[in-house]
């Protein structure tokens, strides 16, 4: 049967994994201890009380709430400009897209350097232009760390939304613009009444995909801040990682992961609907 290989892998690594993660949330499951006692709802109770968990949820929402709209808006603006008949469009398109094809780890390493307090390029240029008078320690400042991570993520994400919007712009029929012009609609009216509504599907797609992706932010945090300073950049997935693979508390870590899943459920459902609408 053609379905067999896919189905076996799917059964083990998705179906079984899902059941297993639920099972784990009801157990105290330490890798080191041979005993894995059933603890009922204890993990969930701990989770509600857990100050760090609350902080990590706040951080994750902060990160997603800032990075997704910023990347989407910048991508939209650039796509609108690049949809004009300009010379050298492909140069710009490549330039804005390059960060998106750079491996995330590489971007994070380079940006960590740029942000460095002692020899980073940010401090150099900001000091030189007198925008700041003291070098800033971007990633180790408790108020600047998260915005710094967000800025880097937006830089890496704009290219994707730009490309999606460019594809969306091409799907809008030219006749609509012609008709609007005949009716005397100015450029702004055309933008508001034709272009933006026409881009709605692209926007929904981008928001859903990016929210799901960014809520699971991990790589930047691991490379750039390790959750610090004082947990200001500890995100939910980073907390899962620490609990599971540094403290070996698989049961509790699964509970955190499951909570993240519940937080994402609405968006996963939206994503599924997007795909289903096409299958219908």
């Amino acid at each position, binding site marked *: 049967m053609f379905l067999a290989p*896919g189905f076996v892998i799917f059964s083990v690594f*998705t179906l079984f994994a899902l059941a*297993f993660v639920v099972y784990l949330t009801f157990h105290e499951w330490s890798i080191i201890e041979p005993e894995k006692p059933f603890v009922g709802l204890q993990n969930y109770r701990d989770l509600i009380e857990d100050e760090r968990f609350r902080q990590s949820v706040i951080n994750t929402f902060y990160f997603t709430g800032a990075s997704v709209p910023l990347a989407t808006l910048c991508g939209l603006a650039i796509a609108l*400009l690049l949809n004009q008949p300009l010379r050298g469009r492909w140069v710009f398109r490549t330039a804005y897209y*390059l960060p998106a094809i750079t491996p995330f780890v590489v971007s*994070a390493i*380079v940006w960590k350097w740029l942000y460095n307090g002692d020899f980073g390029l940010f401090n150099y240029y900001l000091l*030189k232009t007198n925008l700041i008078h003291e070098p800033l320690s971007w990633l180790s400042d408790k108020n600047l760390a998260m915005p710094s991570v967000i800025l880097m993520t937006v830089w890496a994400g704009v290219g994707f939304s730009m490309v999606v919007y460019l*594809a969306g712009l091409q799907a809008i029929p030219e006749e609509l613009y012609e008709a609007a012009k005949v009716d005397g609609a100015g450029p702004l009216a055309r933008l508001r009444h034709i272009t933006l509504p026409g881009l709605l599907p692209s926007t929904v797609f981008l928001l859903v995909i990016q929210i799901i992706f960014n809520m699971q932010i991990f790589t930047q945090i691991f490379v750039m801040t390790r959750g610090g300073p004082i947990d200001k950049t500890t995100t939910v997935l980073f907390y899962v990682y620490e609990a599971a693979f540094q403290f070996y508390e698989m049961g509790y870590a699964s509970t955190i992961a499951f909570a993240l899943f519940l937080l994402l459920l609405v968006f996963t459902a939206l994503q599924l609907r997007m795909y289903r609408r096409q299958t219908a």
Partner: protein
Amino acid sequence: MSAAAEAAPRPTKKRGLPPWKSVLAYVILVPGAILFVAPLVWMISASFQPVGDMFSWPPQWIPDNPNLEGYKLFFGIVPEGELAGRASRAAIGVERWFINSAIVATGITLLQLLFNSLAAYVFAKRQFPGRDLIFLLFLATMMVPATVTLIPNYLVLKHIPLFGGNDIWGIGGHGMLDSYYGLILPNAVSAFGIFLLRQYMQTIPDELLDAARIDGASEFKIFWKVVIPLCRPALAAMFIFTFTFAWEDFLWPLIITSNPDLYTAPLGLALFTTRNRTSWDMLMAGSVIATLPMVLIFMIFQRQFIRGISLSGLKG
């Protein structure tokens, strides 16, 4: 770069913009583009600088003393003696990371192309009871974020029976942790890929398959000789998505590998930064090299890439 020009948005009917508008557009686009590429330009420049110069203020955009030290260290063409006092390359095995990444990314990509297209074919072209329900189940469960299945999958791999020193009950050894199997297998199918291919296969007329069937072709032959060649554009798009994803993946390799010989490139580079004595020149050279395959794939497959994005669920 002709591909880029062809992939350009359809030219608008009116030729050119009023000059003041073009100028305005450039005033926004040019500085923006410079800021966007600056970090990458700096990375390339730094990879050719001696370690001392990398820390200099003002930063050197064009290296004063360009050298290939970082790349030489990276490829191990520096006499062992000169390595004294620096992190020994032998202990790090950097070029190994890239071989690992290539193996893992290629493995994942090939398996996905095969398994996804097989499954997609069944969902698109075969009739059987409950087909659409199973498809929906596939789609729904596989949209579950990877985060959730991370821990169970780690434990499952650790306890694969009769593997990596495990007994029949899956106890005793490390199972598929620290192995290519562990890096590849859990990523060997994807709902997104199946979905994409299924959508594409549905556009293939059934008559074509029936004709082949009448000619006595086996089901597999139909799949292989008729369906697959027709799906080339969708397969190309999937190839790009899967390969880049697998090349960049960080969290999964981080969790399941502890043996430096099995580090993938992103993992090796990231863990490298946390060492005490980082050879920054080597790290920057490695970063450039890790980025190159992505840039190459993008350049070669630009058209398929743009096409893939429009295939992937944007048809309003």
